[in-house]
């Protein structure tokens, strides 16, 4: 089965009946997928190659350059970490560039002045007697330094507990600059540079930390400054959030820069009037993937779904415009859109799609371009083909969102102490970050939701981001009422605070919120992150970004369960380091377990072990 959701299954059937090719068909066409690549044993880094190592021992055991399976697998993994870290970090840099202009351009202002000042002070900027615009500009400059190579360490790494920083210092994995580590990784994996697999893996840790405590953390913090720090609110989710009688604009991608401007434009009275003139009852917005998470967390914009919903949303026949920024956008949506009236609009000069419409957004023109997008949607609304419309006949599911670390602390009455007390008393056994994507190799959302249910049953508080967060919300686990599905301890805590047992922490760059929360918890208790009864899981991951996230979790001392095997099984050495030896270095390690029930067992056992060691 492709998905656990009725809304998805119905649209899949609808599109299958008319012969529209979807991600699952394309996966089938690719199978069996390349065995060498699946094991990480192919190398295309130079043209003495391409080379492959024979895992059955009969054929070549070395590439043309002499690299063996261990070197090739480590190099391939390293490049994936570099790409993942680059993606989050480039996203972060785009926000920093807007921060430097905030208040001076029409579309972007400072929404959270307190956070701006706090961050500025953290970066050593004197905020007295300076205007908000001046502080923003100075903070942006300071943050851009984090991307370069002039510093010895990036600023926000200092948020980690002292013990953790010492471990990183001893390993030599403190990131010096966000871009620098990515560039160095590309350098090291060029032919004839770093050929010691363990050394390559250490640089993986450093590059990923440049993402977790660098690019991603900056992206989260600057998004909060520009668009507001999320606060708890309710909204709805699934494909039935699209409305037949309204103009539907789908916000897809990752960076809130575009989606936020479109949300603002869609609320303008003159444009709503224009929509009504065109015969619509209003303008409806629905999010997809992480940009959906961004506007859901801050503005309560309903969510259409996660990664594997992106083609299906067009199949409803009522998606008038799909406006995208970057990352995780399948080129296939342009093809599906050709069968409908839907316009796919790209907005970033670095993410254009063949046959899509391009409306380029800049900090200066975002305000006007957002209006252009809304007007385009109204025009497309008029061109809908009535015969092709079919919104799944299901009810939108309610959800609670908006749990920034600040909001959690506020909900707890101003400090983390009540949470620590609950953990100490055992009402809450531990905390798990459930993150990551959808992958057509896994029944959509099955592993995410199975894991989440089993964890809360065991009194483990789950915080989730990205596609995992969408999955959990879609089965109703993000409402306070879901507390009754939790174990007695967690249930009591949730009911007394009126919160769900699964807290929505945001998008995939917001995994940095999990780092901030865990670091704060560890600091408050006076231990290291690796001592906490905590873990991470990415049960349905597919992207290089997820590899970077998993790696910075492991570098930070967490057990991370992966539900889809990464392409590293061709090297016994790399497997041994990542699933075993790294634990003696960072306290964290990877476990590969596709079965969500068993994954939950592994995590619960790990949490109990950590509790035992803490004596609680």
């Amino acid at each position, binding site marked *: 089965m492709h998905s656990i959701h009725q809304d998805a299954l119905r649209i899949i059937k609808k599109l299958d009946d008319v012969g529209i090719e979807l991600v699952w068909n394309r996966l089938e066409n690719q199978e*069996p997928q390349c*065995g*060498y690549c699946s*094991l990480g044993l192919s190398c295309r880094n130079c043209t003495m190659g391409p080379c492959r190592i024979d895992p059955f021992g009969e*054929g070549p055991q070395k590439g043309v350059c002499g690299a063996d399976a261990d070197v090739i697998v480590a190099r391939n993994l390293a490049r994936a970490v570099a790409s993942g870290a680059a993606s989050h970090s480039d996203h972060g840099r785009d926000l920093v560039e807007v921060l430097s202009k905030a208040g001076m351009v029409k579309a972007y202002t400072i929404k959270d002045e307190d956070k701006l000042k706090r961050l500025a002070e953290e970066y050593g900027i004197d905020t007295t007697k300076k205007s908000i615009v001046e502080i923003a500009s100075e903070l942006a400059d300071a943050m851009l330094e984090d991307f370069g190579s002039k510093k010895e360490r990036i600023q926000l790494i200092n948020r980690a507990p002292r013990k953790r920083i010492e471990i990183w210092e001893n390993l030599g994995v403190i990131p010096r600059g966000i871009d620098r580590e990515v560039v160095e990784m590309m350098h090291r994996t060029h032919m004839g540079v770093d050929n010691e697999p363990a050394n390559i893996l250490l640089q993986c840790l450093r590059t990923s930390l440049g993402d977790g405590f660098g690019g991603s953390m900056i992206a989260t913090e600057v998004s909060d400054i520009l668009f507001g720090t999320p606060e708890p609110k309710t909204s709805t989710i699934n494909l039935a959030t699209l409305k037949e009688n309204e103009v539907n604009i789908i916000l897809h991608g990752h960076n809130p820069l575009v989606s936020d401007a479109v949300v603002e434009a869609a609320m303008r009275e003159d444009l709503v009037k224009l929509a009504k003139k065109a015969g619509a009852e209003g303008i409806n917005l629905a999010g997809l993937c992480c940009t959906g998470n961004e506007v859901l967390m801050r503005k309560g914009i309903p969510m259409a779904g996660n990664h594997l919903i992106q083609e299906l949303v067009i199949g409803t026949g009522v998606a008038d415009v799909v406006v995208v920024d970057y990352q995780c956008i399948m080129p296939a949506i342009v093809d599906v859109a050709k069968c409908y009236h839907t316009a796919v609009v790209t907005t970033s000069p670095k993410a254009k799609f063949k046959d899509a419409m391009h409306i380029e957004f800049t900090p200066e023109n975002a305000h006007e371009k957002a209006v252009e997008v809304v007007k385009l949607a109204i025009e497309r609304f008029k061109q809908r083909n009535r015969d092709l419309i079919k919104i799944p006949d299901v009810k939108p599911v309610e959800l609670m969102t908006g749990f920034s670390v600040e909001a959690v602390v506020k909900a707890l009455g101003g400090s983390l102490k009540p949470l620590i007390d609950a953990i100490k008393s055992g009402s809450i056994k531990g905390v798990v970050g459930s993150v990551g994507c959808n992958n057509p190799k896994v029944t959509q959302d099955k592993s995410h939701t199975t894991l989440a249910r089993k964890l809360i049953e065991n009194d483990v508080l789950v915080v989730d981001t990205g596609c995992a967060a969408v999955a959990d919300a879609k089965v109703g686990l993000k409402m306070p009422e879901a507390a009754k599905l939790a174990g007695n301890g967690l249930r009591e805590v949730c009911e007394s605070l009126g919160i769900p047992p699964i807290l929505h922490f945001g998008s995939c760059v917001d995994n940095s919120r999990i780092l901030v929360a865990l670091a704060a918890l560890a600091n408050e208790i006076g231990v290291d992150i690796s001592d906490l009864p905590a873990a991470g899981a990415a049960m349905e991951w597919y992207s290089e970004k997820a590899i970077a996230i998993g790696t910075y979790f492991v570098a930070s001392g967490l057990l991370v369960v992966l539900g889809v095997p990464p392409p590293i099984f061709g090297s016994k050495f790399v497997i041994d380091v990542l699933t075993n030896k790294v634990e003696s270095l960072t306290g964290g390690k990877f476990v590969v377990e596709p079965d969500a029930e068993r994954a939950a067992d592994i995590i619960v056992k790990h949490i109990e072990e950590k509790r035992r060691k803490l004596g609680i």
Partner: protein
Amino acid sequence: MKSVVVFPERCIGCMQCMFECAVAHSQSKNFNAIYEETPPKPRIHVYSAKENYAFPSKCRHCEPAPCLEACPTSAIRREEGIVFVDVERCINCGMCAMVCPFAVVRFHIDWKRIEKLPVSYKCDGCIERVKEDEIPACVEACKVGALRYGDVNELIEEAEKRIASTYSPIFERREEVPENYKIWLELRG
């Protein structure tokens, strides 16, 4: 009768057939095969032909089959056109390999044999998969149509038509010479 037909001119040398062949004959039937006690080996191999063309080489399941005729213990048998080795009867004498005109018989330890001794190791036409109505693993892996499974004469007719469709009276003067013809010219020397 259905069998695997090879069209070497279409092979791009990706070696996926080798990989999937080994996996299909393993105990786990997935990539964990490489960690098995007796890891499987491929029974089809891709080698370089002239000019770096790739050539997939495997048992042709001859009829009459020299290997079958030469086997002193009747370990090599034929069922539904497929010539295969009964690993329990093989005594590793090497007669089959000596008489094979295509050099496609090797000797490896097969997990299916109780004593861990090398046995005659060749393509078994994926006889187990075929009985389950699946196509042979190498054919399933081949994305370019170099390995096809079906009725021999039907597949050859298809290829014949493909070659015929490229014929034109001004054939020699065309800049693009069809692949088959190019190989034929080369082989002719």
